């Protein structure tokens, strides 16, 4: 039986991804803080798909625990997907370094710590896939969320390097860049309908892109073009804009 490991499993995107992989025949390790809170969800996946779902505690900020976390998985996963994301409060983070650090460590440092361990194992086994859910916010820093954006930018660069390194070992790395997604994280924002994806659409896109071995996925697809335009704005112009 084959397992996929999903970290940050409480997020709405992670839940949709979990259902998608189980529906397609994979067993699941769902890792999150206080993972028992996912009991009802794990039962849902099992009833729907008759697949095995195991819950594992993972504190992404407790770097020292990560090796033990991975060692305890009796059967090593076929692939890993990170859906960890912490938007944080930009304004607060500008004055309060603890908030800034939490944004950076959650979205970047912590995942690097876990992914390094898994990447080494996959490289040795010469198989596996790694999916990192980054964000379009990492494509260009904007005043409204550049702390989150900068951590995501670092994560995107990390995934790009990892893909390069693991190419020889035939370990596939997928960078996912969602635009707006209707989740708990964005519940208070007024999002434009045409640019906003539902979590299950994002999950479908991720599953298909991973199965096909794609490198970078924008979801919705429209975001590739939106970001191309945003990245194309010259800096002298961009610095005066509010977008």
């Amino acid at each position: 039986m084959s397992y996929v490991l999903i970290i940050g499993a409480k997020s709405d995107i992670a839940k949709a991804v979990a259902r998608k992989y189980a529906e397609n025949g994979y067993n699941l390790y769902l890792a999150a803080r206080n993972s028992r809170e996912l009991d009802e969800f794990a039962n849902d996946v099992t009833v729907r798909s008759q697949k095995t779902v195991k819950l594992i505690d993972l504190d992404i900020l407790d770097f020292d625990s990560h090796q033990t976390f991975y060692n305890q998985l009796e059967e090593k996963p076929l692939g890993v997907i990170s859906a960890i994301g912490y938007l944080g409060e930009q304004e607060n983070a500008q004055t309060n370094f603890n908030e800034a650090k939490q944004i950076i460590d959650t979205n970047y440092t912590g995942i690097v710590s876990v992914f390094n361990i898994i990447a080494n194992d996959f490289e040795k086994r010469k198989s596996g896939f790694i999916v990192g859910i980054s964000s379009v916010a990492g494509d260009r820093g904007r005043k409204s969320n550049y702390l989150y954006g900068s951590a995501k930018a670092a994560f995107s660069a990390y995934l790009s390097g990892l893909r390069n390194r693991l190419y020889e070992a035939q370990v596939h790395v997928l960078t996912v860049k969602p635009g707006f997604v209707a989740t708990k994280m964005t519940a208070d924002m007024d999002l434009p309908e045409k640019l906003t994806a539902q979590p299950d659409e994002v999950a479908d896109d991720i599953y298909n892109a991973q199965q096909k071995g794609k490198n970078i996925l924008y979801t919705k697809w429209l975001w590739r073009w939106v970001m191309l335009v945003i990245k194309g704005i010259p800096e002298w112009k961009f610095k005066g804009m509010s977008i």
Partner: protein
Amino acid sequence: MSFISWGRYPITKNIEFKFENDESLKSIISEQDALIARGNGRSYGDSALSQNIINAKPHDYFISFNEELGVLHVQSGVLLCDILNSLVPRGWFLKVTPGTKLITIGGAIASDVHGKNHHVAGSFSKSVESFRLMLPNSNIVECSQLENTDLFKATCGGMGLTGVILDAKIQLKRINSQYIDQTTIKTKNLKETFDTFEKYKSSEYSVAWIDCLAKGNEIGRSLVMVGEFRNDGKLGYKSKNKITIPFNFPTLSLNKWTVKAFNWLYYGKVKCSLSRQRVGIDSFFYPLDAIGDWNRIYGKKGFTQYQFILPMAASYDGLLEILETISKSGKGSFLAVLKLYGKANNNYLSFPMEGYSLALDFKIEKGLFNLLDELDQIVVKYKGRIYLAKDVRVSKEVFEKGYPDIDKFRELRKTYRMNEKFNSLQSKRVGI
């Protein structure tokens, strides 16, 4: 927030409330009024619109499935398509399914939906073993045919006006194929259409597409489709990818000429008076789900579906009169669906009764509501009724005449103080 229903009319402002668990739902209900629960927004009119909307769609966990008995326990936001994806490959299907699989279990109960097998299987509530309902005082009660029967009869078909359905146990049926043997019979007029329904009364599924622009002695000409599940053991069901309509069509693109052309082509493409096909679950039960957001073809002003049912004895005369009136008006309908129903159940507000029902789609335009008012009078004259799940404009008087148990329902609403908490734009309009 601006929720719209499937007809994309009317457009109203609402406040959305989501709940994580029973406790958070309790606090919403105790603090707010003018509430109505909403599933996937597939009712056509204003039955799931109100000032405050409880979005039950994220409440979508499967709880258990008893493989021996075929009883599925799910939360109310679970979509029918999720049930099919999970259980058709294991040989189970819904005992009753409407023409879309994109509705929630809560919505299916609240509208007491029915399908192509109503004449043999009754409506959705017949497959409901029990459900849990949160009342206005935030007590949770278990309702079934044996327990809290008054609440069961009021909630099935009660359009969300009795509280919030939390989860339900549904009896499924065994199938041994994902394919249906379909027979299409082409009829020349209403008389022939009725005779065909009678002739195939013992078939499991039956429905007719009727050409509502036909005139004179061709009035009522139809394609009657009947079907039975095959028994070939092929269960490898996977729901199809759909195409979507990404924008509203220009309002003018649907007019009587295009509808006429469509009807002519649709009816004309079937050459033989009787033909047989093997079709899949999706094309047999849910042909329109294959086109995502098909409601956009009616343009930005939206559309409505006018669905009524007439008692058996009055069906022929009544339908003839209604079809003549529509034909004269020149207002066409792409989708005109006729069906013979079985016996009514004893729920207070369920739509089905023994007789014939016709459903017609119309885009919202000038003069439409006058025509529908005219049709209402014919429906009332023949002692029929209008389907609330589709309706957006019926008057209190016409509604009441069709539903003899309405006063029992109103009484129960008062007893449980449901009328103080749960209301939709529709319930206010028709005075429920």
